[in-house]
């Protein structure tokens, strides 16, 4: 057993038992971050804050929400929106944060791709991040079912139908997922469980993994510079803060994070109070009606690009393309064959690849919402084929990349 002495203070008492000073050093004051970064490096903190907003607002909503097909809609739109003091506020914060969190996730992801932050020991950061993207997607989808509006019901119908996998006709699997032939009470109950318990647990676990994956390779910097963290840390600790290439996580980096969070929150609350329509779809304010299919069924904006990879093709091919789109980002660290972990602007063909991918995904997003008619379906088809082609050519263009 370890040796304990009479504590001189509460801190000392804790220190003997939990090494809090050491933990504080490892996690904060001597967790070294490169100085050469821009505000895009604060997106992780923005995401953490947005997740906290989702969690807190979700806890308040949980106190009044009723997961029953007869009362779910009214418990949200009457009880929470009208009867409960500030219930409307929690719902708006929750709905808007659920949409905005994806905007920040996409910015975070494209930052990683642009600066090559998935290479040279950072593969696990990328993979845990993509797993977070998948679980956030499931969390968003399951949450969308809960108000039991028209779009909840019909999106639930369409998305669970995907699991019949076209000509494989796995109708039994679809019924197993729904717990019924069509979305009903069993469906609503299990998506409520997924949304309020299992998926948040998975997300919190994955956030832990994501942070842990970051600790040893450290974050990248905006010039892809190789930094000897030990040497630079010594320089910092000896007092040459200005000359050192690294800074402490806390308070140095955190003060910048908080500044970005502050600006983000102005934007976020503007959306919550004055511009929420994009996140709280009007169609979902009609109660679920199994006998009335809405004229247009579309997912929330953050799923549109992958929806549009499914849609322009015949069922079986569409499903294969859709499956491809779901997993391909995960493989990025291996599909990119170049050892250069530098910004895309210095990587020749990869730079073109990056901007084309971004433009293509925005095009897919737009076409995924527009009615699949005339020119829109043609553009959608071309954009979907381009998306697949981009990933096929990636290993070839990066293999011949010159050393940057």
């Amino acid at each position, binding site marked *: 057993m370890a040796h304990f002495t009479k504590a001189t203070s509460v801190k000392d008492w804790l220190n003997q038992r939990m090494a809090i000073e050491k933990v504080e050093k490892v996690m904060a004051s001597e967790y070294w971050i490169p100085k050469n970064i821009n*505000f895009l490096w604060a997106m992780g903190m923005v995401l953490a804050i947005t997740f906290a907003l989702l969690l807190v607002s979700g806890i308040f909503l949980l106190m009044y929400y009723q997961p029953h097909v007869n009362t779910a809609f009214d418990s949200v739109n009457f009880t929470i929106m009208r009867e409960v003091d500030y219930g409307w506020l929690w719902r708006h914060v929750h709905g808007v944060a659920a949409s905005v969190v994806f905007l920040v996730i996409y910015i975070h992801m494209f930052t990683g791709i642009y600066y090559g932050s998935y290479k040279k020991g950072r593969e696990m950061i990328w993979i845990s991040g993509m797993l977070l993207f998948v679980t956030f997607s499931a969390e968003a989808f399951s949450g969308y079912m809960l108000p039991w509006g028209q779009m909840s019901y019909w999106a639930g119908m369409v998305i669970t139908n995907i699991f019949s996998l076209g000509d494989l006709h796995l109708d039994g699997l679809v019924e197993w997922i729904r717990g019924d032939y069509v979305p009903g009470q069993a469906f609503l109950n299990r998506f409520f469980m997924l949304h309020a318990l299992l998926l948040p647990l998975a997300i919190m676990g994955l956030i832990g993994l994501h942070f842990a994956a970051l600790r040893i390779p450290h974050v990248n910097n905006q010039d892809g510079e190789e930094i000897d963290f030990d040497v630079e840390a010594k320089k910092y600790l000896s007092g040459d803060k200005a000359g050192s290439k690294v800074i402490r996580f806390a308070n140095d980096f955190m003060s910048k994070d908080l*500044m970005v969070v502050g600006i983000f929150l102005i934007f976020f609350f503007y959306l919550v109070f004055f511009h929420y329509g994009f996140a709280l779809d*009007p169609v979902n304010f009609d109660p679920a009606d199994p006998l009335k299919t809405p004229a247009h069924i579309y997912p929330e*904006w953050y799923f549109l690009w992958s929806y549009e990879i499914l849609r322009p093709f015949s069922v079986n091919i569409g499903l294969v393309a859709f499956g491809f789109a779901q997993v391909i980002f995960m493989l990025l660290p291996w599909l990119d064959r170049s050892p250069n972990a530098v910004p895309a602007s210095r990587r020749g063909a990869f730079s073109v690849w990056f901007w084309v991918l971004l433009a293509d995904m925005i095009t897919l997003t737009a076409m995924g919402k527009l009615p699949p008619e005339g020119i829109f379906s043609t553009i959608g088809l071309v954009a979907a084929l381009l998306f697949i082609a981009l990933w096929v050519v990636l290993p070839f263009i990066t293999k011949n990349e010159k050393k940057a």
Partner: protein
Amino acid sequence: MKNKEPLILVIVVAFTLLTYWLVEPYAHSQMHKHVDSQNFAYADLPAITKTGNVENGKLLVTGAAACTGCHSIAKENLPAGMDAVTAAGAYGVNPPDLSEAGAVYDAKFLADLIKNPAHALKVEHKFDAAKGQMHPMASFAGAGGDLDQEVADMVAYMQSIAVKPSEVTPKMAFENACGRCHAVKYEKWTQIGEKPSFKLEKDSLTFDVKVLEYQEHLTKYMGKLPPDLSMYYRSRNEHFLSTFIENPQAHLEGTAMPRVGVTADAAHKVIEYLADSADTKRHERSSVGMNVIIFAVVFAIFALLWKKQVWRDLH
């Protein structure tokens, strides 16, 4: 080294706004039919050329024109001949009380309605007299004098007993124009009136049964039970509601919903009633919103100052 942050910010904001514009304003402009407002001018209806005589109008409404055979005028102590459920059984829908009709409905509309209901209501596709499909409200063919003068008199009478148009409340406008077909359960409104709070469950259930009976008649009459409008202010938008009220056929050709002929002002009140139901806390949202934004700005300023202080030694 050059500071790249402003450029990066411009790029991030530009791509975000582009995506937003594509999936919201642009996509919705392509998905929904656009109907322009005609400002409730009812240009298809003839103007009233005669000056109405209130006294003569009263005689016609309560006498020769036989309006009060079906319509109550509560303000003049003229009760309905039947209760709402029985009336709906007879006519399909309970005929409206005429107390405030003169304030809620457009005068041109009322005049045309009296002469030819199916025409004014734009339901001639459903009620074609030539095919024997009679509208439950009989056309007024005149009481012996000049038809246009008599109609103008009746309209003048209805306007004389109604409140001033400025005194029409949102609830009054909704109940008159919409409330006999549409329920708004979040406001406790049913097609036969506001549901009172009953002490005994038996009484509550009795009331519910009456509503169900009424709804059965209404469903037979309309083809489908008209929807509950509790959340329509949020599931549709103001422009949609306004143009739909003005002329349902413009949005949904062939619909059984009649044009109700409300004035622009009354339509505005109806929408306010729907907003109170579906977006009850909108005023609180604006005021709380301003305070939160002010807080967020102050927070951001302090965060900026703290960052500057911490980074002073790092540069």
